[in-house]
């Protein structure tokens, strides 16, 4: 056994937009063990449910994460609507699905950019983010916000999106496909990118199941695990959803899954806009919550849990969110063991860590 060295990684590190700390135990250049420690951005926002009523809690939950903000808002209202036993108007469900998929496109493009930056391909990073701005413009036009929208509320949507705007959105997104393809082809075909990612950080199907990985991390290892396959999540059942699967389980596979999901999301948006019915987007709901309800959402990073427990008043007794990164940290720790030190940033990035989600 060689001499062991412990190298601290983070919390302030050039590849990390967010603080996570890893103690990397090294033998020469090889990682033997990685010990994660978190808590740098723990805010304790779940406890705010004691002083904010359930309508206000939606705003708080949306601010768990600025990237999958819409999905968190939807998850929170879906769990509260579940506890109340209400069915929101169909148009609202369609609008939520459309915005959620739009959020996935923006999140995956953002991640592809960060990944490119992680392996030192800065122009690719800039191209990904340039394309992403088009998606943000659509958000801004239709909801008023670029990052946090607060358009989802218990009982439906705060405002409708007109059919003309939806048609425009459909055109813009379909037009974006060619541009995205140009960029994503570089990830798939470029020799230097392949070199960095193929065969690096392999997570087998058995390991993914054993470590309870979720989202693109699990799907890249061939585990068909996507909440959008179930019929109680938005209108995915009506859109004919099939999960994107890859078999290799390495960094490349995780990238390819996300690239294919970008195109899939654009198709889903297009289909949903073709099918969307007219009608109201909002309904009256009780102003108190009783009972408990667990629901799940497929966020860009994977499956997220929302648990609410009402106390018969407008205040919740407990609002619990379990986010995808939480469940992917064990898998990340597993893939880190045995990796080269120079590959650590790549491995950390390919789980698409969202630390503010993890710590809430």
């Amino acid at each position, binding site marked *: 056994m060689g001499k062991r060295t412990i190298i601290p990684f983070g919390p302030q590190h050039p590849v990390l937009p967010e603080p996570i700390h890893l103690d990397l135990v090294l033998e020469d250049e090889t990682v033997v063990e990685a010990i994660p420690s978190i*808590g740098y951005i*723990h805010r304790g926002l779940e406890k705010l449910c004691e002083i904010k009523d359930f309508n206000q809690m939606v705003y708080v939950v949306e601010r768990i994460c600025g990237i999958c903000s819409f999905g968190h808002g939807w998850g929170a209202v879906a769990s509260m609507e*579940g506890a109340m036993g209400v069915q929101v108007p169909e148009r609202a469900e369609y609008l939520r699905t459309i915005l959620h998929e739009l959020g996935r496109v923006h999140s995956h493009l953002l991640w592809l950019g960060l990944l490119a930056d992680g392996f030192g391909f800065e122009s690719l990073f800039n191209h990904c983010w340039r394309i992403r701005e088009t998606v943000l413009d659509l958000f801004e036009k239709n909801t008023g916000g670029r990052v946090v929208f607060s358009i989802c509320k218990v009982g439906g949507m705060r405002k409708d999106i007109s059919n003309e705007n939806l048609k425009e959105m459909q055109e813009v997104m379909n037009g974006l496909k060619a541009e995205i393809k140009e960029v994503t082809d570089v990830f798939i075909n470029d020799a230097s990118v392949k070199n960095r990612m193929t065969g690096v950080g392999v997570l087998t199907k058995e390991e993914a199941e054993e470590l309870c990985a979720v989202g693109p991390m699990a799907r890249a290892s061939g585990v068909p695990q996507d909440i959008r396959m*179930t019929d109680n999540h938005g209108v995915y059942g009506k859109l004919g959803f099939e999960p994107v699967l890859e078999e290799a389980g390495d960094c490349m596979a995780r990238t390819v899954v996300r690239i294919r999901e970008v195109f899939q999301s654009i198709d889903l948006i297009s289909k949903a806009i073709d099918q969307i019915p007219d009608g109201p987007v909002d309904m009256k709901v009780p102003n108190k919550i009783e009972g408990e309800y667990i629901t799940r959402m497929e966020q860009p990073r994977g499956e997220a849990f929302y648990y609410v*427990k009402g106390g018969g008043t407008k205040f919740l007794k407990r609002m619990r969110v*379990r986010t995808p990164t939480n*469940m992917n*940290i064990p898998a990340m720790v597993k893939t880190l063991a045995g990796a080269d030190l120079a590959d650590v940033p790549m491995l950390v990035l390919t789980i698409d860590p969202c630390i503010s989600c993890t710590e809430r």
Partner: protein
Amino acid sequence: MSERVFVEQNFETVDLSQLIAKVGDMKAGGYRLGQICGVVLDDDTYEIIYTFDKGHQLYNLRLDIKIGEEVESITGIYWPAFIYENEIHDLFGVQFNHSALDYQGKFFKISEETPWKPKK
């Protein structure tokens, strides 16, 4: 308008002595650990909810404990549970015994100790 399909809410109450056997059964049945969540019921009772998933169907185990009671760790069965157990330890002050990866209260470094624990 189509009817909303609600997520099936399967809850089963277990007690401390059954926990490990029950969780072992879930593992043998091919379930995946979804999450563990702590809830404050009243001034001296916590509820810990273990959620499992198989084929997108949820199954929950509900465990009621008195504050101060110690719980057997399930990290021997589901290793990823260490994240939740350390979190509940740091936020609620529940002691998990025989954990495979115990951070000894250093998982979340927070200004206030066990902020969720009811103040007497």
